[in-house]
Each structure stands twice: as structure tokens, then as C-alpha cells.
């Protein structure tokens, strides 16, 4: 079986399990909405959203909901003892990582597909004005976040106190994604969208993705051995 076929199989398995239970998608979505509610109390002043707050709300909500989804996806593997089976399979470890990453990314994008319109409606942020640039930022940002998240969630799956450790590990390491996403989105949300700045952040996110996916592929194999 080729590398990509293995990866596709792993991703398909994850999405199939998810479409049957819908557990991760429902919980992360509701969590994302509750997150936005909490932010609304702090960042809306006299009915107006504080400057640049919509960009921050969007990305922090994505990051928080992403952590929840990542934890749950690998908890499921651990509970059913399927992670070991997956690792025992005669397939390259890197392919398993790519498959998992694709599954996580698909779920994250699904959550974003609902969170982004909600931010547009609830915080009066014209995110769709430059839909192409916004989509590119979301794609690049989510890929970087999911790449690091999948690696650490997979490695933490078997360790104690993983629920507490995942955010502690993930947030400092994904700081560039959050900065890039928030600043890039804020540049798009300005009355006169600052495309030069947005493009610079997009380039930063893409190079972050390239470096961190390479590093993940590189470390997944030696780090996941028993």
C-alpha cells in the first residue's frame, strides 16, 4: 500500500467513527460557542466590539475548540486500545501521522465553517469581504495548529495527566500560529483592508506549517516507539 493510501485510510477511519458518533464535532462546537459568549462579556464595550477583538475571538476560539477535539480524538483511540493496533500495523509511522492530521484538520475546518459565520454575525466583523484571503489564513493557520497538535496529542495519549499537559505544551508552541492568524485577520478587518500585511502573515503561517510538519514527520517515528 502506498504512503498516501495508508494516510487516506487512517483519515477515512477517523471521519467514519466521527460521523457515526458525532461526539467531537458537537462538543467542540458547543464549546466554541460558549467560548465566544465568555469573550463577549470582556470585549464588547457599550454594544461595540473593541478594536481587533473579533480577530482575537475567532482565533482563540479555534485554538480552544481544537484542543478539546484533539484530546477527545486520541482519548477514543486509547479507550478502545486501537492506538496500539494502529502502531502495530505494517505501515510507515509517518503515513499514520499524516492520516491522523488529515482527520483532525477536517474536523477543525468543520468547526471553523460554523464559528466564522457566527463571528461575522455576532461581532459584526466583515470576515467575508476578502473571502479568499481569509480562507487562506484559516487553512494555513489550522494546518499548523493541527500539525503540532496531532503530534503532541498522539504522544500524550498514553501518558498520565494528558488533559492538563496538552494545552500546556500546545499553546506556547503554537504561539506563532495565533499571532499570525490574529494579526492577519485584523489586517483584513481594517476599514481599508491591508493586503500587504495580511500576505506577509500568510507567508509566515505557510513557512511555519512547512517547518513544523517536517519536524513532526521526523519526530513521530522515534517518539512513538514503545
Amino acid at each position: 500500500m502506498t504512503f498516501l493510501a495508508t494516510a487516506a485510510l487512517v483519515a477515512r477511519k477517523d471521519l467514519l467513527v466521527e460521523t457515526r458518533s458525532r461526539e467531537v464535532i458537537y462538543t467542540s462546537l458547543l464549546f466554541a460557542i460558549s467560548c465566544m459568549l465568555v469573550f463577549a462579556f470582556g470585549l464588547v464595550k457599550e454594544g461595540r466590539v473593541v478594536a481587533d477583538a473579533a480577530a482575537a475571538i475567532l482565533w482563540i476560539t479555534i485554538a480552544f475548540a481544537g484542543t478539546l477535539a484533539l484530546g477527545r480524538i486520541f482519548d477514543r483511540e486509547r479507550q478502545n486500545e486501537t492506538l496500539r493496533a494502529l502502531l502495530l500495523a505494517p505501515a510507515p509511522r509517518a503515513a499514520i501521522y499524516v492520516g491522523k492530521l488529515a482527520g483532525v484538520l477536517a474536523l477543525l475546518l468543520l468547526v471553523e465553517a460554523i464559528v466564522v459565520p457566527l463571528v461575522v454575525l455576532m461581532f459584526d466583523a466583515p470576515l467575508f469581504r476578502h473571502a479568499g484571503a481569509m480562507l487562506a489564513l484559516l487553512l494555513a493557520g489550522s494546518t499548523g495548529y493541527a500539525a503540532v497538535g496531532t503530534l503532541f496529542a498522539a504522544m500524550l495519549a498514553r501518558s498520565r495527566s494528558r488533559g492538563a499537559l496538552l494545552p500546556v505544551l500546545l499553546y506556547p508552541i503554537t504561539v506563532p500560529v495565533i499571532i499570525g492568524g490574529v494579526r492577519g485577520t485584523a489586517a483584513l478587518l481594517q476599514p481599508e483592508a491591508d493586503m500587504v500585511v495580511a500576505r506577509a502573515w500568510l507567508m509566515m503561517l505557510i513557512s511555519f506549517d512547512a517547518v513544523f510538519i517536517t519536524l513532526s514527520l521526523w519526530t513521530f517515528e522515534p517518539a512513538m516507539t514503545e
Partner: protein
Amino acid sequence: MKRLFPVLLILCIGMFAYAPFLIVNAPYESTMGLVQKIFYFHVAAAMTMFVAAFTCGIASAVFLFGRRPGADRVGFAAAEITVLLGLIVLISGPLWARKAWGVWWQWDARLTSTLVMWLVFQAYLLLRRFGGPGSDKLSAAVAIFGAALVPFVYWSVNMWRTVHPTTSVVPTLDASMRGPLFWCFGAFLCLFLLLLAARTELQERRARLDDLYLALEDS
């Protein structure tokens, strides 16, 4: 290393004991005056912290890809020292900043990347402590990611800051100040080597003890 230990210890004590005299005799900086003298320990500790973090990153990579348990012990010791030196940097920095910039903290590239790096190495230690079995490999991966992360954080905050420029104080260094600074850097480097040797040795002994316990159970 064991024979080098007393030599390093004496050297380290001597250098730290002499450092205050050098710092007192260094010229006063014209605008900041006395507080500027924090600089000698602050910058020296920061430079040594980067050496420690770099050591941890390399040792972790050697451990993860070369499967050498010895490298892991060096990495762990270096991570502990990174956190310790980071604490010194993050406490002495704001003390100086309050006087120089009027605020305790600025979200400038250097400050933010130091904070993020410190958090990553804190995560490394937390993982070691609470992660349970297998956390050695996981933490090695964290160290490698942490090492790769710093340039990204630096660039991003710098870029975010150049979009919204603020005044910053860039210390231009006189030759009479460079001497004490490098003396302090040397002292901190000695301290780093000393602690690294001590903690690595401790880890070695722990590992040996574990092996003995296992051998006892088997027999």
C-alpha cells in the same frame, strides 16, 4: 568530569565573588544611572540561558534519533538550568525595564520570545514530572520543537511591533562595560557547566539505581 568538578566550583565561586567589584567600577550609564548595572547579570544570564536551551535541543535530538540514553540525561539537566536562568532573566528584566521604559513589561520580540521559550522548557519539565512512562521521548520532541520555535516567535512579534512601532532602548556598549559583561557571562557559563555536570551525574546515578533494582527483582 568528576575531577573537573572542584576546579569548576572554585572558578565559579571566584568569578561570582569578583563580579560585583567589576560592576561597581564600571562607568555609569548616562541616562539610566545605577539601575543599568542590572544589565551585567541580566544579559549574562540571558546569553547563558540560550546556551543551555541550545544544549538541551541538541541533546534531545541526539537522544531521539541516536537512541543514546546519556544524551537524554544531559538534555534534562540542561532544561532545568534553562528554566532557572530564564527565571533570573525574567525577574531582573522587568526590574530594569520599570526604570528604563517606565513599564514592567513590553510585548517586544525579545521579551516575548524569551517568555515563550521559558514556557516551552517549563512544559518540558512538567512533562518529565507528571507525564509517566514514555515521557522522556515526548519531552525530547518538545525540546526540538521549542528550539525550532524561537526564530518564528521572534520574527512574528517583531513584525507585529513594526506595524505598531514603539520606542525601544538599544544598549550601545562601551569597551569599559564590555569587560565586566563578559566576566559575568563567563561566571554564568561556569555555573551552567557546574550545574549541568552535577545534575547529569545525579541522573546517571538514578538510572544506575533503577537498573540495580530491576536486576534485584529479576534474580
